[in-house]
Structure formats: C-alpha cells, structure tokens
C-alpha cells in the first residue's frame, strides 16, 4: 500500500493555519479517510472504554485479532472510547469499503466468528445488530435502523460526546480532521484573551462540576488578578459513586479536553496547568498522556504554540482517593502535597489558589464545552438549553434502568424524557420511585418532579442541585431509608474532619439512621428514642448545612432531608412498626417457615447462628421470632424455598 505523504504537520499547516480556504484534492481525500467517510479495507471498531473493558471488550478484541490472523483478513482494528451505550457493551462496529458503519451489541468472544463471517461477506447478523450510522457517501445496509434514529440517541443532543466512541482516541490526526484545534488556532492567531472571555461569558457557560458559576467570569477574575504566574487546574477527580462523565470524555476524546484547556488557559492568562485525575482512572490517564505527548510533538502544546507566542504545559497529577478533593480548595491543597482539606473562602482561588497564585479550577465537562463555543460562537451555543442554563449536560444514568449509560441532553430536558424516552424506562417494568440527582450530596426527585425541566434554576426551586451529572434512578423495590443511610455513610467516610459540623454531624445522622434500621434490643432503642432522633434530624441537618466550611458539609444533609420530606411514611414505618416494606433493612426482616413446604431436613436449624429455629427431623420447623436476628441464612440455605420473608 502506498504511504500517504500527508503528515500531522501538513494537516496543521493546511487546516489550522491556512487562511485561504482552498484544500488540495490530495488532502480532501486524506481527510475522508481520517473521518472514515470512505475506507479502503474493513475497519473494526471495538468499544474500549472502562465500561467496555469490564464487560469483556479485551477478550473480544483478542478474539477478533485471532480471527483476522486465522482467516488472513486484512482489516484495521480500532479501539474507541465509550459511545454511552454501556448497557450494550461490548460494542463492535464494522465498516466495510463502500458500506455504512454498522454497530453490534453485546459481542462476547464466542460470537466473533459467526459475526465476522457474516458481516465480511456483506450479510449482517440480525440478532445482535444495533443500527448503522448515516453516511451519504456509502451504500446503506437494508432494513437496519439508523443509530441516530434509535430512541436512545434521538432525544439526545450530543455536542461534547459527539465523537466519543466513534473516533480513535489515540489519534490526534482524526481529531484535527473532524475540525479539532481549529478553534484554538483561529483564537491564537486573531483573538485576544479578553475576546475569548467575552464570548464564553456571552455564551452563558456555567461550571459543570456542580457549582454552576459562570466560567468566563472565573477566568476574568484570574486574568485581572495581580501576579505573573497563574495556574489552570482541570478537576478530573470524579469521585461521585455512579458518575463517570469526565472519565468517558477523557477516554473517548482526550484531545477535546486539551483544546478546551488551552483555550481556557489563554483566556485566563495562565501558562501552567494541571489535570488532577482520579487515581483509579488508569485508562483515562494512559489516553490523556498519549494525547498530551502527541500535541506537544505537533506543536499544539508546550512552548510557542502554533508560533503565536503562547505557552502552555499540562501536567497530570493522579489523586490519592479522597472524595473531598473534588472541592476546589481541597484539591489545591492536595496538589501542594498537603492533606486534602478545604480552605476557608475568601480568598477565592482566582485570587490566591495554588501556591498562593491566582488559579482557575474548571471541571472536565466545562472545559470540553469551550472549543465548541469558540468555534460556533455564543449565539449558536445558546440554541440548546434554556435561557439561564444554556448548552447541554452530560449525565451518567444508572440504577434500576433498562439502559444504563452516558447521555448528553439539552438543559431543560425533563426527568421523564431521560428515564422513559432515552433510558427505556425502569427495569423489569417496575414503577419509578425516585431519582437521586447530583450524587451523594444531591437530593432525591420523586414522581411529581418528572416533568420539571432539569436546569440550574428549576432544580434550585425544588431544593435540589444539578451536581456533576450523576443520576441514579430507583424503583419501587428500593428502601429509601436504606438509600439515605448509604449516602450518609459515604459522606461520613468522605468528611475530611477539619470542621466539626461536618465531621460530627454526619456521624450523628448516620447513628440516628442506624438506630431506626437496627433490630431493637431489649431496653435500648425504645420507640420514643428512635423517634426523637428523627425529630432532631431536620435541626441537625440545618446546622450542618449552615455551619460547615465547604460544599461537602453544606450539602451533606441534603440526601437525607429530601428523602425524609418525600418518604416520611417509610421512615415512620421503620420507627413505629419496625418494618421495612422493601425488606432491604436486614435488622427489620422477619422470616417464617412454610410448614407445607418444609421437609424437616434440619439444615436451617443447623446453620442458624442464634439457635432460633426449632423442630424435629422430618417434621416442619419453626422460627422463634424473639431470637431471630434477621440474618437470612435460613432463607439462603433452604433447598425447598420453605423459608419466607414476611
């Protein structure tokens, strides 16, 4: 095969720096290849984000390589990031010369042979097909839906995730071919930092990490602050359980983040920047490192970028596993090599941040929005979303949903659209009970909020927060007391211990919740005491919110108080009736033995740690309720399904 003479330098020269719009036919052709509008040999794409890896994408990849070698097929294999359809992983896409790219779901290694046999001979495997991508330049497959028309994608508005899962995250050229770095190049060549800030302020871009502060204003504050050395920090310490937006952006399109950082750094007047990456994000780390090195080599990072005189260095720092380091001042302390405890504000980081120098801390998603804003202008950006919350928001939707994954919707989309249109409703047709928005520090939304538009203002009005994008949906089988306890337990562990309201307060809240979910002991935990605890919860929550130093403490009571507000009945049941309607709270479970089904095998009696089961061999057994501790061992060991949960 003839090697192309077009290098990355040519691409940069012709696409980014060339002011005349003439592009040579050769380059045109090369771009079509990079964008895979047409391919000269089969290309097999394997969804290899972390979700893909856990679903077994590596094994599928091996099986594919093995197949290609065995059958002597000349094909290109590309590892992509996550397209957001985590529920369908491992995903394998195939693009044959002259044909549209088709996508298969749940491709386990044993399916590889049949699937490739069929597809490489221009037949598709109907059973595992997801859809095909629209491509005007190729012949479409018959009777296969377009990916863009699938309900999952139809209601989304993908800007940041546009290329995630489609392009090769290891290839800088592909990103440039798709229009990447164009915004940075044109900015460096012809715009001042103030103009960039102005555009971003006008676009109304708000911090996607949860704060919702106008990003352009933050940059302005840092740019105008006194001092030579300033810093930009990209907060990628995404530690909310059930949130993986930032990781997917970095794994799927790392160059987008780099371009966003370069633009932000230029606008805020910083030349040194850090990415504070969560410690367990190994794959994301590998991809962003490769992307940074490639950009450096191509002159898109480092000294004198694109001959504009602008310098930027990006250093990766991995976190060390502290939830509180998602808070910007705690993160700064951690970068300085200290314990990750928050600092009192003011002074704000934009005045005195890292090493006491003006510092901008932005979240990954916020920065990933910037290239689009600069390329398309503020007005175009505002076409999506609502007036006060323009743009789109990426959500990681998980929990009891038919389709868990990563989505991007315009601000103002309702919960109903997300859950029922995009995610396909609740698993197994169960009823919707609640949705936790904003992770452990967020609030729960209930069925009355299904039609509330999701944007900063309307969420605030119902005492909820946007958070960073975690959305956990629970069904009717979930115990809300247990869920609240889970969040409080998480926050109590995450509390850094610096200020008393958060350190002690979360501990007390957990204690109260444990009290009402525990099996009552003789003399202790009388109903009145348990009830008093709950009565004090609201007051306790108020004090914690009002007096804590940082965001963690201020929002810590939220999950509990919001659950208490909407599900007080369930709390009361736990307190007065000592009953958990979902049978989740172990301490409140009671078991009985179905005398008809019990064969008297004695297994349960032998295993019971409390000797609470009595009965003669070959005769039905009984459980002495007073002795039973609710452990459920009898339930697990019974071979005849004779032990029942009451």
């Amino acid at each position, binding site marked *: 095969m003839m090697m192309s003479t077009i290098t990355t330098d040519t691409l940069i020269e012709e696409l980014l720096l060339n002011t005349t719009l003439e592009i040579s036919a050769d380059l045109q052709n090369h771009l079509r290849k990079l964008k895979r509008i047409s391919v000269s040999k089969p290309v097999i794409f394997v969804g290899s984000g972390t979700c893909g890896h*856990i679903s077994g994408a590596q094994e599928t990849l091996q099986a594919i390589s093995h197949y290609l070698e065995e059958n002597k097929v000349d094909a290109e294999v590309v590892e992509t990031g996550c397209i957001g359809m985590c529920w369908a992983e491992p995903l394998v896409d195939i693009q044959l010369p002259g044909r549209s790219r088709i996508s298969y779901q749940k491709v386990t290694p044993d399916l590889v042979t049949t699937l490739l046999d069929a597809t490489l001979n221009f037949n598709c495997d109907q059973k595992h097909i997801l859809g095909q991508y629209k491509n005007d330049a190729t012949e479409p497959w018959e009777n296969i839906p377009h990916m863009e028309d699938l309900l999952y994608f139809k209601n989304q508005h993908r800007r940041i995730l546009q290329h995630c899962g489609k392009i090769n995250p290891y290839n800088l050229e592909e990103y440039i071919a798709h229009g990447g770095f164009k915004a940075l190049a044109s900015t460096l060549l012809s715009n001042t930092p103030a103009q960039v800030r102005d555009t971003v302020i006008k676009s109304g871009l708000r911090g996607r990490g949860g704060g919702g502060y106008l990003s352009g204003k933050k940059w302005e504050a840092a740019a105008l602050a006194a001092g030579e050395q300033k810093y930009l920090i990209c907060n990628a310490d995404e*530690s909310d359980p059930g949130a993986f937006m930032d990781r997917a952006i970095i794994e799927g399109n790392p160059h987008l983040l780099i371009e966003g950082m370069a633009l932000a750094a230029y606008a805020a007047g910083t030349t040194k920047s850090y990415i504070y990456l969560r410690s*367990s994000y190994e794959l994301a780390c590998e991809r962003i490192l490769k992307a940074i090195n490639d950009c450096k080599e191509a002159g898109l990072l480092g000294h004198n970028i694109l001959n504009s005189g602008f310098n930027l260095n990006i250093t990766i720092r991995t976190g*060390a596993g502290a939830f509180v380091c998602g808070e910007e001042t705690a993160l700064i302390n951690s970068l*300085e090599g*200290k314990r990750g405890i928050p600092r009192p504000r003011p002074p704000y980081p934009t005045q005195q941040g890292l090493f006491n120098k003006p510092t901008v801390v932005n979240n990954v998603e916020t920065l990933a929005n910037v290239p689009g804003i600069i390329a398309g202008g503020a007005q175009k950006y505002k076409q999506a979303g609502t007036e006060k919350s323009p743009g789109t928001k990426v959500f990681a939707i998980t929990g009891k949903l038919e389709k*868990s994954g990563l989505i991007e919707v315009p601000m103002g989309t309702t919960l109903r659209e997300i859950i029922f249109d995009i995610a396909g409703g609740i698993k197994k047709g169960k009823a919707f009970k609640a949705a936790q928005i904003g992770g*452990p520090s967020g609030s729960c939304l209930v069925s009355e909020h299904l039609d509330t538009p999701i944007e900063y203002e309307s969420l605030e009005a119902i005492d909820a927060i946007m958070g960073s994008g975690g959305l956990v949906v629970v069904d009717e089988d979930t115990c809300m007391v247990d*869920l609240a306890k889970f969040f409080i337990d998480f926050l109590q562990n995450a509390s850094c211990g610096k200020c008393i309201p958060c350190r002690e307060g979360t501990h007390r809240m957990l204690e109260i919740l444990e009290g009402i979910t525990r099996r009552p002991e003789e003399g202790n935990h009388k109903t009145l005491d348990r009830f008093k605890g709950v009565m004090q919860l609201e007051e306790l929550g108020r004090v914690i919110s009002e007096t804590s130093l940082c965001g963690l403490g201020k929002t810590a009571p939220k999950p509990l108080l919001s659950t208490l507000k909407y599900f007080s009945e369930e709390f009361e049941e736990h307190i007065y009736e000592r009953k958990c309607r979902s049978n989740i709270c172990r301490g409140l479970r009671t078991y009985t033995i179905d005398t008809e089904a019990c064969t008297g095998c004695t297994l349960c009696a032998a295993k019971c740690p409390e000797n609470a089961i009595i009965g003669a061999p070959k005769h039905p057994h009984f459980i002495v309720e007073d002795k039973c501790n609710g452990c459920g061992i009898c339930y697990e060991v019974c071979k005849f399904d004779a032990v029942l949960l009451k």
Partner: protein
Amino acid sequence: MEEKIQQIISSHKGTKREDLIPVLQKVQEEYNHLPEEAIYTISNQLGIPASKVYSIASFYNLFRFQRTGKYHICLCRGTACHLSKSAELLRKLKKELKIEPGQATPGGLFSIETVPCMGACHLSPILRVNKVYYTKVETSRVKTILNTYRNK
C-alpha cells in the same frame, strides 16, 4: 530499601513538598504498601518530618500500611452496586474470609477493599480480584469465586 527509594525520588525529578504525594504513590507501587522504613526515608530525603509524611499518607484512601493479600478483592460500593445488594456481598465476603475491608487474611492469600464506583453500573454488583472482573455477582457465587483462588 533506602537506595531503591532514593532512586524513585531522583527519577521523579523533584524534592519539593508538592512532590510528596507522587513519590508516595510510586513507593507504594513498588512495595505494594508503605512500609514504616519508607516513611522515614522519604521524610529524610524530602526534608519533611516523618509525622507530616504519615499524616498525609494516612489521610488518603489510596495509601495503605499493610501488604495486600496475594489476591486483592475490590468490591464496588457505588450507588448502583448498593442497589444491587453489594452490602450483602460485602457481608458474605467478610464472613467467608473473617476479615474487614482493609485487612488481609492471616496467610496473606486474600485482602478486601471497598471502592467507590468502578463505572460499569450496568453490570452491578461488581467485584474485582486482582485484574479479573466478576460482574452481576450474586451472593451465592462468592464461595465459588473464592474457591477458584484457594485451589490455585
């Protein structure tokens, strides 16, 4: 050990306070945990009191002061996994191995760690033993999984 740690520090190209956490990370990578001796060596090399080094290392969840087992079990305790009853899974693990999270079994075969969200919520609950993932794990499978490693 001292030499090795010196090597790690010199390869890191920095001896300032802000280099402490990266150095600790690299030392832990090398030794699986942070041995007491390492704390003192790092303290001498970077000129930070040992109490400070320990204070920082003990603040972060990443660092541990005990060796992990030969088979290190990470259990996801994210929200989706919690909804899929990962608490029961943890209880079962604790009961089977008779250890708490953060500890290793006396023979050093197993250790347990709970982690917040691995990010594959559609497969919850998730358990990882060294580099192998087990997904949609039911409590009844725990024993079988452990036995495959016990018999290795």
